[in-house]
């Protein structure tokens, strides 16, 4: 399953919205996913991908933003020196 699909599933579960409603390119608030729910889902996403979100704030507006960030973090954080 692609990164995007996994993230869509995790957010859909947290927000209790249908997974197919999570258009990757639309702003999350337009999809009935509020910022607190995104924060909650982020913890599941970190666990699933075994990554750590950076401490500094990363602008996230869409599901695609999250997916791109996760791909980047996986590349940076896997195998690299601890």
């Amino acid at each position, binding site marked *: 399953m692609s990164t995007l699909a996994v993230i869509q599933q995790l957010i859909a*579960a*947290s*927000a*209790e919205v249908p997974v197919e409603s999570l258009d990757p390119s639309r702003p999350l608030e337009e999809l009935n996913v*509020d910022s*607190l*729910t995104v*924060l*909650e889902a*982020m*913890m599941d996403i970190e666990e699933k991908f075994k990554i750590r979100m950076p401490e500094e704030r990363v602008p996230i507006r869409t599901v695609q933003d999250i997916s791109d960030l996760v791909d980047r973090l996986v590349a940076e954080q896997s195998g690299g020196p601890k």
Partner: protein
Amino acid sequence: MSPVGNDCGTFFDNLLAGRSGIRKLSANFAGRLTANVGGEVDYDPAGRFPRPKLALLDRFSQFALEAATQAIRDASIEFDESLKECAGVFVGTGLGGATTIEAGYEEIFLGGKDRVPPHTVPRTMNNAAAGHISIDHGLRGPSLTYSTACSSSSIAIGEACRAIRHGYTDAAIAGGAESLLTLGTIRAWEALRTLAVTDTGDPAASCRPFSKDRTGLVLAEGAGMLVLESLDHALRRGARIHAEVIGYGAASDASHLTRPGEEGQVRTIRLALADAGAAPDEIDYINAHGTATLAGDAIETAAIKKVFGERAAHIPVSSTKSMHGHLMGATGAVEFIASILTIGHRAVPPTANLRVPDPECDLDYVPNIGREGVAVRTVMSNSFAFGGSNAVLIARAFDR
């Protein structure tokens, strides 16, 4: 929402029948405690709220929302746009999201994690319950939270009445919510040596207000909410009026942080009577603060005798904490509701587990057996808190 029932009917029936909701705690840490009884609410939030919302709700907010919904339904009140514009929410709580903050600490200090769930702050904050009620019902007036320990919700109700009386709003949701049956909280109370020793033969009888063999209070959880309206508003919409809140007294002991003070209690009761314009002989029932601590019950008895004189011996006084335990920030609201329900039921609940008379507690505590067929018109509910923050509420049957 209480250890003896999650609706007014069940709640009052159980109280009247003298049925205690105090049990051995169901939590897995109960075995580590000496005082291992509590008043738990039989309630599972699963399916009651959508998941994203539930993630934001500590148990005390869940109780608050359930109680508010029941109160609004019972009142059959419709909040139209102009009423929503001014309607307020007044909530009392002692420890707010105690369960959430303790779970967070556990993860950090015990689990070695370096962060907690993102909902920890919005779940824990004391004003979360009031915020959720105002959001759910679209009430845009003041959303206020009072934290005055054991009198929190009596203060919330009294202050809401004042806001209505002074014309700030026509209606308010007022009451209290508490959920603090966590290991850390119970340990903290244990350390104060105020918790009842568990009655091993009959755990349900561990809380024994006014009985000479009383050993302390039993912690409990729950919520109680009322819909308060100006009389004009209630009459205009043809509301079923349970009672009219006629008196509120709030005053401080200004003497000691934890030891109750007779003088402060006397003053608070007198303030409430004066506010109600009621003479002492008009009070037909008193719901005592009656926590079942050694000092507290004797001092409250002395205070009642001082205010009511000869009349004191003829007023039924009960501590329903003997059955629902001490709901802390929610207890005043739950006990005020019990007091109001005596009017319509023409019955007063007993003080359960009153086994051994105490010469220092010599009022009519309605020992062990509830009394039916009692003409109750005017009721008083006492709340005397740590911090010396006292509150007394008086309500009266409303005759059109």
